[in-house]
């Protein structure tokens, strides 16, 4: 190394320190991230561009001298990652946003504080400009897992044929389960999807892309090798039967029929069975255990809600049809958008906030304080501080009065509340706020559920085991101990010795530590598409895409059960989830000598 370069490096280092920005890092869903994930898959350029991006307030960006498409290094206590920059004036100073995905997970906080929910939001982070490259998905996953990333994506043969229009199709994307979709089919080509949002439409139209169509087993060389289905099932059963404490995870993007078999398999194996609730509304569900609930079905929002509150959720990007269906459309008593007051409370001015009548910006991580203050205001107690969570006291009194004086209020809430430091305490408090408000008027709070059947996964688990998620059968009886039996904690601590992942992608959405440990144990993946988890799996079993190639029951976020439909035949030799699980179950029974 020459002396000039040393000097230059030292200079740059000094400059870098000066140009360092301290932020609170928030992660969450973005529209493009969701669409690209469903369409081209997670190895695509579009997904990479959207999910490996840190959004910053323009002034913050200027401070460290970065602009759109510059690269920065984001460093937290838990790791560091290089990402691109994008500028978002809707973000407050000192807050940065990375869409959920493997890049974000490299730096989020894996501690769940005994709730099962890692801290995906409000993580202190340092940002500085860098010349390093943004790693690709494959690079990132192989660095974290130490496994060779391998995928054999197939685009299904599309053949024109009989032209059909499927009416009242139920969209298998998000918890809104839009059931008025028209799908124009020509043979097995989805020609048009009418009524669905960009996310749902993307999922349905691109059902044929990035598919797993053959079973694979990882060979000693570290690559996936094609095999027959019976062989893959045998191998999966072998792994599970010889494990002491396996994990069955996912289930939220499949139908109840499969979940029922999944629970039976878990009970037989003495496994932990968990669904994605653990990293979305797990804290909400614990809040229900603590305080109860105040719910309504979505039709009533249309008929009655004259005040709608969105708290810590961004349906404009995560549930794009939500606003139109329940806020803009009118019902029996409230005739439409103009008769409703829409208030958004969030840490950043989201797309949803821009559609609202009023936006209240809360300091990141301070939602609990704000709810508590609101409860005080609703009870006419005096608030001593002049501002709470960045919101002036007068504003809180005013909001409390608005909540008390509406005729039928509905609060939708999302990850902004569940992923915070207080976890379920925020939700317990929010539910109690709704309870308090019902002494004045009618008020309900409804969680915005993400995966299309995550609600069903919770319901099935509850009636079969007594617990909605994170159920451990190790002792032969169902146990639910958040922080211990939760999939995240079990993985982070390395408590499980094999994993069956079905219809979910923990490698993309679990914190780095959990993914590291997941890669150390035998891993079976059942999925219709090449998820990141499938790419590092030991056994890959293709499945029919439920909601398109397989039918069954799914529950809307408000608990309304609907039947998703089979409209296209799955590829030859590809079974639906519940049959795959039944096959594995019967093989496991045989191996264990029954």
């Amino acid at each position, binding site marked *: 190394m020459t002396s000039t370069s040393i000097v230059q490096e030292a200079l740059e280092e000094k400059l870098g320190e000066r140009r360092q920005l301290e932020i609170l890092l928030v992660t969450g869903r973005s529209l493009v991230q969701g669409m690209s994930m469903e369409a081209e898959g997670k190895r695509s350029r579009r997904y990479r561009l959207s999910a490996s991006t840190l959004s910053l307030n323009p002034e913050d960006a200027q401070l460290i001298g970065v602009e759109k498409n510059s690269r920065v290094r984001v460093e937290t206590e838990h790791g560091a990652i290089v990402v691109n920059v994008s500028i978002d004036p809707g973000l407050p100073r000192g807050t940065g946003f990375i869409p959920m995905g493997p890049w974000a997970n490299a730096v989020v906080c894996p501690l769940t504080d005994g709730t099962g929910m890692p801290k995906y939001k409000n993580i202190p982070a340092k940002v500085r400009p860098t010349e390093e490259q943004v790693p690709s998905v494959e690079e990132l996953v192989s660095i974290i897992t130490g496994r060779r990333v391998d995928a054999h994506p197939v685009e299904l043969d599309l053949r024109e044929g009989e032209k059909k229009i499927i009416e*009242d199709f139920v969209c298998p994307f998000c918890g809104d389960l839009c*059931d008025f979709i028209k799908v124009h089919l020509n043979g097995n080509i989805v020609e048009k999807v009418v009524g669905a949002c960009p996310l749902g439409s993307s999922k349905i139209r691109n059902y044929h892309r990035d598919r797993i169509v053959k079973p694979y087993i990882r060979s000693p060389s570290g690559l996936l090798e094609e095999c027959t289905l019976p062989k893959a099932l045998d191998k999966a059963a072998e792994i599970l039967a010889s494990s002491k404490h396996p994990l069955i995870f996912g289930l939220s993007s499949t139908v109840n029929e499969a979940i029922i078999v999944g629970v039976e398999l878990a009970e037989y194996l003495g496994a932990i069975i968990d669904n994605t609730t653990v990293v979305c509304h797990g804290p909400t*569900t614990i809040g229900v255990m*603590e305080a109860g609930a105040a719910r309504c*079905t979505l039709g009533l929002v249309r008929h009655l809600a004259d005040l709608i509150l969105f708290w810590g959720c961004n349906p404009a990007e995560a549930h794009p049809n939500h606003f139109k269906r329940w806020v803009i459309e009118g019902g029996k008593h409230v005739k439409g958008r103009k008769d409703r007051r829409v208030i958004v409370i969030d840490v950043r001015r989201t797309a949803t906030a821009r559609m609202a009548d009023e936006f209240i910006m809360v300091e990141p991580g301070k939602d609990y304080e704000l709810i508590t203050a609101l409860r005080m205001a609703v009870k006419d107690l005096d608030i001593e501080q002049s501002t709470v969570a960045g919101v002036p006291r007068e504003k809180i009194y005013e909001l409390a009065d608005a909540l008390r004086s509406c005729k039928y209020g509905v609060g939708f809430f999302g990850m902004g509340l569940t992923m915070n430091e207080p976890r379920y305490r925020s939700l317990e408090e929010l539910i109690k706020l709704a309870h308090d408000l019902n002494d004045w008027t009618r008020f309900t709070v409804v969680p915005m559920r993400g995966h299309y059947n995550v609600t069903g996964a919770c319901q099935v688990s509850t009636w079969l*085991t007594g*617990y909605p998620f994170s159920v451990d059968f190790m002792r032969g009886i169902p146990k639910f101990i958040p922080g211990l039996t939760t999939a995240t904690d079990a993985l982070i601590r390395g408590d499980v010795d094999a994993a069956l992942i079905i219809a979910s992608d923990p490698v993309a959405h679990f914190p780095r530590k959990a993914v590291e440990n997941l890669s150390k144990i035998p891993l079976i993946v059942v999925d219709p598409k090449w998820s990141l988890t499938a790419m590092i799996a030991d056994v890959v079993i293709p499945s029919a895409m439920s909601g398109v190639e397989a039918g069954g029951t799914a529950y809307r976020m408000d608990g309304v059960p609907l039947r998703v439909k089979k409209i296209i035949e799955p590829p030859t030799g590809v079974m639906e989830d519940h049959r795959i699980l039944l096959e594995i179950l019967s093989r496991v029974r045989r191996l264990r000598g029954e």
Partner: protein
Amino acid sequence: MKSFLIKGGIVYDPLNGVEGEVIDIGLRNGVIVDPSSLDPRETIVVDARGMMVVPGGIDVHSHIAGPKVNTGRVMMVEDHYLTNIPGKMGLRSQTGRTVPNVYKIGYGYARLGYTTVVEAASPPLKTRHTHEELDSIPIIDKMTLILMDSNWIALDYISEGDLKGLAGYIAWLLHATKGYGVKIVDPGADLAWLYGKGYGIDLDTQLPEYNLTPREIILMLGEASTLLNLPHPIHVHCNRLGYPGNYSTTTRTLELSSKYSTGNKISMHITHVQFTGYKGSTWATLGSGGEEIARILRRQRNASVDLGQIIFGSVTTMTADAPFEHVLFHISRWKWAFADVEAETASGIVPYRYRRRNYVNTVQWTIGLEVALLTKDPWRTFITTDHPNAGPFTKYPRVIAWLMSRRAREEEMKKVNRRALKKTALPAVDEEFDFNDIIIATRAAPAKLLGLEDFKGHLGIGAQADIAIYNIDPGKVDPSRDWKIVEKALSRAEYVFKDGRIVVRGGRVVEETYGSTLYVKPEIPEDLSKTIVDKVREMFPYYYSIQYSNFIVDLSEIRKPREIPVKTLL
């Protein structure tokens, strides 16, 4: 399939007039057959000498499946921690106390010798969920009642006075949801609840939005189900449930039953009458209205009741009476869940604890027993605890012991609130049920009330082979004195046959089978059916947030559907 011969048992079969006779019973292919027709080489003989042989029990009102039951499970997780039974021998693990998981419900009922249970209330929009949960409950046959009193489309018909239209709509709704009967819960209250009202409404309270009163709703729904000739009459949870002084609402509701009844048929079933049998004007002056209700009930031959008997201890109350649960939340001050369902109904859940020393709880305890003992008509008074509202169903043998033995009641009365007892008639009641009465109240009468007496609730040739055998000799045991023996024997059946298979032996579940789901299919004239479908299709997009076609529960979604055809009077 194997056949069985139950030999030497002491048989109680009230529907066939058999009262404690030693009769052999043969079963083959899931039905009861003439014992002499059995092939001895293929027949297993069950020695039932000295044991009581009765039809499988039928519970007419229990909350075992559906959205509110499941929410109750989540809310009551603390119940599950210490109540686990691991799954062994091909069975699944059981958990929960007041709101157990599906396996504990199925096995639990089977152990008691019960083989048929009615889920008491399901919101139409979420009945698919109810069916999914019912499908997961092992062993028992089941069916679900459908909530209709605050249903906007039904109310449209009622306010137009269109009886035929209403009947047609009920037929459509029962068919669409694969339900079994009409449930009325605090009529009109959930409609008012949506507007922040509905607390303590009475029969003649004007309801918001519709120019209607609860009285009109009950009468029209009652008349319509009579017209439809439904096998089960309207199932009514009275107005003002849980409010002091509500017994008069109950008696006035009872009197409505004769307004539209035909012949001797029971035209109205009042459920968990204990909760609507309060005298007095405040909680402090609460008294028992049991005597009055019994008096009116004796006169109103077209009505029946079930008790909703209180069991001291923890419960989880859950009901479609949403406004009352809000009131109870202010009494219990712990947890509360409610859910409003568009265009249909609402529900509430509040955990509660009945305490012996509590004045109000003691009064409540006496009411159920008073009604049963003073009415003295086991054909029209059914034993329930409105599980899990007044107590868990697993305590039925305790209730039976109280009914059969004055001593058992006295034993309990020693421990309860003295001041409350003085205000009730129970200490002076000498009445005691005998075995036959109990079998009537838990088998024969429920089968008749559900219109299933052809194949359920009796042991005649051709009946479904659902049989319970208890290790107790009614000839030797005096239930009045040995009530503890009775309670113990009834808690753990020696044998239970479900569809001709042994599912319980020695008080243990030995095989997991799955029963059928019963639903009615009223045949209505085609032109009426078309008018109804047209109207519902027209209103559907306006009232509901899902599509008409996605609302209808298909038979393929139900594990083992069993249709009960209905010839209507339309």
